[in-house]
């Protein structure tokens, strides 16, 4: 969706302000939100794409005014409600009023580190040949899905070149909405800065995005 999360090329946000000796978390509650979001994701009640979709579905003004982990918290509450794992009233009181719903699995302390150090790959087996090859000229489609997508606005309609065929991955546009993994070819596509930004582009500059096959058409 053309939401507030799609920030590439936006102006007016001011300078980047790094924080010297920045801590990993800035408040105790951030630690708990981070861990709850990961642990609830692990239950299988939703997936990572669904979490991203929930975060970027916040109203734009609220998204931009919220701190990072506040966005995570609001999205987590939304997903818990949407999947029926708990009600808003229960979340407000902190006490269960209804029985728990079964979940596929829960995250235990034992073996947790090994599981997270092993990771959760999103690559899948190919069941069709790739449509594009390295050096193919492509155009990012000028599409505006109202659901989750990973094609940023600033490349839509722009002409680029395939620089790597990354493999086959879960397709976020369907996975986010419970419509299946639909394993899809993924490519790294390079655009010149001047194709993207005209004469304001950095001379000689390149910007690459990772783009799924349905986002692209032959140039």
């Amino acid at each position, binding site marked *: 969706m053309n939401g507030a999360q799609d920030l590439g090329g936006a102006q007016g946000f001011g300078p980047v302000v790094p*924080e010297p000796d920045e801590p990993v978390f800035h408040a105790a509650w951030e630690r708990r939100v981070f861990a*709850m979001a990961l642990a609830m994701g692990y239950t299988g009640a939703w997936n990572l794409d669904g979490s*991203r979709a929930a975060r970027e579905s916040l109203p734009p003004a609220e998204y931009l005014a919220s701190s990072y982990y506040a966005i995570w918290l609001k999205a987590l509450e939304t997903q818990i409600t949407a999947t029926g794992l708990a009600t808003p009233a*229960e*979340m407000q009181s902190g006490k269960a009023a209804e029985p*728990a719903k079964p979940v596929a699995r829960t995250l235990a302390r034992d073996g947790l580190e090994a599981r997270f150090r092993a990771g959760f790959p999103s690559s899948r087996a190919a069941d069709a040949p790739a449509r594009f090859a390295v050096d193919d000229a492509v155009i990012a489609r000028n599409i505006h899905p109202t659901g989750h997508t990973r094609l940023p606005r600033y490349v839509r309609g722009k002409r680029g070149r395939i620089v790597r065929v990354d493999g086959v991955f879960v397709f976020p546009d369907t996975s986010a909405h419970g419509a299946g993994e639909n394993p899809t070819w993924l490519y790294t596509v390079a655009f010149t800065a001047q194709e993207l930004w005209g004469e304001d582009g950095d001379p000689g500059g390149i910007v690459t995005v990772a*783009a799924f096959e349905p986002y692209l058409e032959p140039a």
Partner: protein
Amino acid sequence: MSHHHADHDHAHHGSDLSPIEARVRALESLLTEKGYVDPAALDALVELYETKVGPHAGARVVARAWVDPEFRARLLADATPAIAELDIGGRGGEHMVVVENTPETHNLVVCTLCSCYPWPVLGLPPVWYKAPPYRARAVIDPRGVLVEFGVTLPETTRITVWDSTAETRYMVLPMRPAETRGFTEDALAALVTRDSMIGTGLPKALPVAPVEASV
């Protein structure tokens, strides 16, 4: 009681908590009561990502690539298994791509759509990486962003920006600083900053060599 309440032992009453603290605590109580989360597992997740996973891991990868040309070649060809040779990997780094800085090309990593970042090698991202100014400007004004980080590149150095729009995760292999011939891998790793692996910085400058004592 599990030790996760150690963070806020000072607050014994709801009224002592800020609204968001109260909201988060209520949520954790509820999810625990329902059996969806185990507070001990949450503690372990926090411990893992606050104290164990961090840019020291990426620095080891970079230092190895600087001293071992065959490792460097494997790293640039297929980064995930190469990084796994150092027992580094996991969530947020399942599909790694390493991009190499040269005198001709400087690489810069961003996630314009959210906060994708190579956790196993760099840890959790800093706030500026996740915040709108960097996400907005890295793709349209990378040279200006670099100046704000104190990095002024020669005009002849071209910039490639890698927008992390899928599950591939990028790490920059910075150029090895001059005057480091004969350095051990550990000494080299100590020069590798987090920002130099995002592309917003360069490896640490070497300390000025002590002038030979003439007394």
